[in-house]
């Protein structure tokens, strides 16, 4: 009986040993190859770096700049990538894009079809960074793939937005209505006005996340031309959409007629009081100052905090805060006044 068990155990031991040896061999060979590859890439980078720098800054093209091997392409990619992050000038960026399109388009086209998720993702990042519009169709085609991961999809849509892709509006409103506000914002922020206007027009029919994203993008961009739109939303919606549009208004920092908004300082919802206080601060409405001081005594921390900040924005704000700090009997108001007096010491 024991012989049988001994046999099984021996087989187990030997097979585990084999697995271990295979693992070790695989790991060491892999590491060695990796190190070699890295060395070669670094060498190529050293050679190409001055040439690429010259090309980008002066536009002088050198014949030596034709990648042949995969490692050379990799070196190109890494160099361009590091330049893409620091280049500011329009001319330089254009040259970078041109150069990438000449040498990397085919390579990326292939890589976009790769079976590996990470390869496709990396490629998408590079296409994005280098602004390679030559690959627009290839990127768009990816949306038709089944089993697309969420991250990949959002990334594709972002690239399409960057390229101001014509059918993006249809895509987002017909096929991808289930994205989160965060995803939409990520995408919409990249659109130019003409494209973005489609979403503004569509606003009333859009789902809540898309609505919020549109308002958020307007408030980030502080686009004054959307003022009538925003004011219209404030008075025709309630709840979160209303709050978001108020926030956008506060960010833009301009209204023709402030009076309708003063009532909001007395709203029963603390969020509305807070955002109204923010609006008053950015518009510096003198006549609302007494109410702002009252809000410094509000029961909600956020409202007090915002009231303090808004008061601070007035020219004589610090004096007013000091007065509150010295005379008020409310510890919380005192505390908040103190905090704003000492912000950014």
């Amino acid at each position, binding site marked *: 009986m*024991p012989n049988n*068990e*001994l046999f099984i*155990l*021996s087989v*187990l*031991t030997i097979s*585990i*040993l084999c*697995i*271990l040896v295979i*693992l*070790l061999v*695989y*790991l*060491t060979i*892999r*590491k*060695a190859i*990796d*190190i070699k590859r890295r060395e070669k890439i670094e060498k190529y980078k050293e050679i190409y770096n001055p040439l690429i720098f010259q090309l980008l800054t002066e536009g002088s093209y050198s014949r030596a700049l034709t990648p042949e091997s995969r490692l050379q392409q990799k070196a190109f990619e890494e160099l361009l*990538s590091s330049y893409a*992050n620091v280049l500011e000038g329009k001319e330089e960026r254009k040259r970078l894009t041109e150069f990438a399109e000449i040498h990397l388009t085919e390579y990326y086209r292939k890589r976009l079809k790769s079976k*590996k*998720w*990470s*390869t496709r*993702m*990396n490629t998408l*990042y590079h296409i994005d*960074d280098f602004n390679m519009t030559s690959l627009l169709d290839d990127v768009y085609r990816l949306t038709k793939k089944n089993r697309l991961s969420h991250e990949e999809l959002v990334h594709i849509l972002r690239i399409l937005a960057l390229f101001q892709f014509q059918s993006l509006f249809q895509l987002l409103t017909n096929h991808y209505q289930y994205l*989160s*506000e*965060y995803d939409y914002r*990520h995408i919409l922020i990249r659109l130019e006005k003409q494209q973005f206007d489609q979403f503004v027009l569509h606003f009333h029919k859009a789902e809540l996340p898309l609505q919020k994203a549109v308002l958020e993008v307007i408030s*980030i961009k502080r686009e004054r031309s959307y003022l009538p739109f925003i004011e219209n939303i404030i008075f025709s919606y309630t709840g979160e959409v209303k709050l978001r549009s108020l926030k956008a208004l506060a960010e833009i920092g301009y209204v023709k007629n402030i009076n309708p908004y003063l009532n909001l300082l007395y709203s029963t919802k603390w969020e509305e009081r807070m955002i109204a206080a923010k609006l008053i601060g950015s518009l510096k409405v003198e006549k609302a100052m007494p109410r702002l001081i009252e809000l410094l005594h509000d029961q909600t*921390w956020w409202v007090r905090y915002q009231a303090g900040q808004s008061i601070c924005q007035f020219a004589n704000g610090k004096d007013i805060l000091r007065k509150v700090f010295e005379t008020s009997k409310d*510890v*919380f108001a005192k*505390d908040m006044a*103190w*905090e704003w007096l*000492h*912000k*950014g*010491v």
Partner: protein
Amino acid sequence: MPFFQWEDIVTAFTLFIAVYMVIVILFYTVILLISMLQLRKEYKLDRVQVYEDYMEGIYTKPVSIIVPAYNEEAGIVHSVRSLLSVNYPAFEIIVVNDGSTDHTLDKMIDHYDMKEIKKVVRKQINTKPIGKIYQSAIFSNLFLINKENGGKADALNVGLNFSHYPYFCSLDGDSVLEQDAFLKVMKPIIDSNEEVIASGGSVRIANGCQIQNGRIQKIGLSDKPLVVMQIIEYLRAFLMGRIGLSRHNLLLIISGAFGVFSKSWVVAAGGYRTDTVGEDMELVVRMHRLLKEKGQKKKIVYVPDPVCWTEVPEDTTFLRRQRRRWHRGLFESLWIHRKLTFNPKYGSIGLLAFPYFWIVEFFGPIIELFGYIFMLLCLFLGGIYIEFAILLFLLSLLYGSIFSMAAVLLEEWSLTKYPKVSDIIKLFLYSLTETIWYRPMTVIWRCEGILQMLKGDTSWGEMKRKGVSE
């Protein structure tokens, strides 16, 4: 007949060990496979690119960094400086001086020109009384709170009460952060639209690396066997264990060394418990419990990227102390929430994670210890074939190494931090020796931890009387 009885015991015990081993190996294998799939998917993903977008302030959420400090005059100024330079758009640093008896407070005040401020701190969680509060005149986002000594958990609670931002990060005073640490751990929170309420990252071992000005300059492998063994352990725990568990929202541990939490949820759960040595694990378990009880679909996740480098003990005295404490902390967390074990009401946490932590993590060392004793007894009393014993021994030696090497493989697939071929060979050779010395040693220490507890430790008794405060 005594001899006959001994043989019976041998058979029964062997069977028990065999069944136990099979269960453990199955657990590990499943977790390994899940981790492998995950990391293979992200194979060679360019991580720097991924984080770039998050640096734009509009997307990020501000974080309060809480640094509890007890007698850390040697390192505190340094740690704070490295924190001030992290790559994140909006954060504040709150150093909580937990009644240090050295010059921690003076050093901070001198070096950062801390000025006393008057502030009302909202007491959302009960803590020991706090003294003066300071703000730096140089960095307006650096605060210092002085308080009576009350332990790490209490200091963290004070920081929580004081903090202004919706997320907070707990941090050990002696760890070195990666520059992008916050971007990395906040990414899942931002991406998930706040469905993720806590997120932790890999903790790596700093011994053997070159550190300058609070930054890792060069990654290296230490020459000390004890450290190399701990590196293997950490790789296994983080890359294998936590990825696998996190994937299915079963993560019960976010290392105390570095983790970001949603403040509102931690406050809702009641903050850190001050009467356990494992406050970091206990909090995570309590949050899971709260989520299940409220029927919320929130998540607690783990990011495989290394975010923080920490120094581990280099000699046995301190390692022993650490392991005893860990094991005790583990037990306390499990015991406080023992109701969850096999409780279908708590879903996968009750049915999978808890049994896993009880059977594999907690009882593992006890069973292993009995295994070792049993082996020795058998050699003297007979009842087992010597060939059999040798083979079993070899098998246990090798199977442990398989998991260790698999962890190294995962590391190579994902992060590739160790630069030399010789590093891999070194890790391999050391992992082969684990069963001979390191494993038994830690097993004994962990059992010591259990013994200490059974001996009627006072804090243990107190906790029992208090019950679960929820």
